[in-house]
């Protein structure tokens, strides 16, 4: 979002949305789809962080786990329990996809909190692809596993017969809004938090209110650490909820 900088009419030394500009890594000038940009760099760093957190510590497994192995096992168990609780036993088959989503979003959110870092998940383009992949997977899976019975998701059989067509339209709309809200929730939350930090940092150049502004930056940074985890958790658990709808479409 906001890939164009608007520096006009602003009294701040920098614009709070400047941090979301996508730049090519090497040189400057126009770029095409294969140019490595700062988004590419931070996504690659996110994947490296996942490897460093999960693959390397568990490569030499010990009966008494080291600190790294404990972290990897706790993370694995946390996501496994979440999938099992929400989707039930038959949803465990899809655990690798959900674990991948969770770890990618979590590391992208936390790496974005480093100073001068680029938050890949603050762009609707990134979260939109993640949410569309979930939406397509769940829809195809629902039709493959249940056939035409999947349409029963929209036909609320517990409602009075006269109300069912109206409810079907509402259910249909809410089904197709899912990828929009799914992606905008993550992207919007990350972008809003980072923009607020930059706005407070901009206030710090006024000498009178700078101590308050710096304290505000610290406080919001603490909040953002919490938000980074909660939004990854929410994205994952909503994926589980959508998956449960595909596995058991009975309303």
């Amino acid at each position: 979002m906001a890939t164009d900088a608007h520096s006009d009419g602003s009294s701040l030394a920098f614009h709070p949305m400047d941090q979301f500009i996508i730049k090519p890594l090497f040189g400057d000038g126009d770029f095409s789809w294969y140019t490595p940009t700062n988004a590419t760099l931070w996504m690659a760093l996110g994947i490296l962080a996942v490897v460093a957190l999960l693959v390397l510590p568990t490569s030499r497994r010990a009966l008494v786990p080291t600190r790294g192995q404990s972290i990897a096992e706790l993370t694995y168990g946390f996501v496994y329990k979440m999938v099992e609780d929400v989707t039930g036993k038959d949803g465990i088959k899809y655990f690798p996809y959900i674990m991948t989503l969770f770890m990618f979003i979590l590391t992208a959110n936390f790496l974005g909190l480093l100073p001068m870092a680029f938050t890949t998940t603050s762009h609707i383009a990134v979260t939109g692809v993640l949410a569309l992949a979930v939406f397509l997977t769940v829809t195809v899976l629902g039709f493959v596993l249940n056939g035409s019975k999947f349409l029963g998701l929209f036909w609320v059989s517990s409602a009075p017969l006269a109300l069912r067509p109206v409810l079907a339209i509402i259910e249909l709309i809410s089904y197709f809004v899912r990828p929009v809200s799914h992606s905008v929730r993550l992207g919007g939350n990350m972008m809003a938090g980072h923009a607020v930090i930059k706005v407070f940092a901009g206030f710090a150049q006024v000498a009178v209110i700078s101590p308050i502004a710096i304290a505000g930056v610290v406080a919001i940074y603490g909040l953002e650490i919490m938000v980074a985890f909660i939004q990854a958790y929410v994205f994952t658990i909503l994926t589980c909820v959508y998956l449960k709808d595909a596995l058991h479409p009975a309303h």
Partner: protein
Amino acid sequence: MEGDIAAMGQFIGAGLAGIGSGAAAIGVGHVAGNFLAGALRNPSAAAGQTATLFIGIAFAEALGIFSFLVALLLMFAV
């Protein structure tokens, strides 16, 4: 100054869209408050419902984020 009426409309609209964030805050507060009220009556059942709590908060919060998105679109995209 004649051409600034459209820009004024953009900023007023973005400010009005900000009301939606406050409304979403009321919704999230309702979800969390009612969860706490229920959890204090039956603390043993509370741990199993935290996932439901976060789903409820996420749904209430999504509409606030939508209004924020409308404000951003008015400020930067229109």
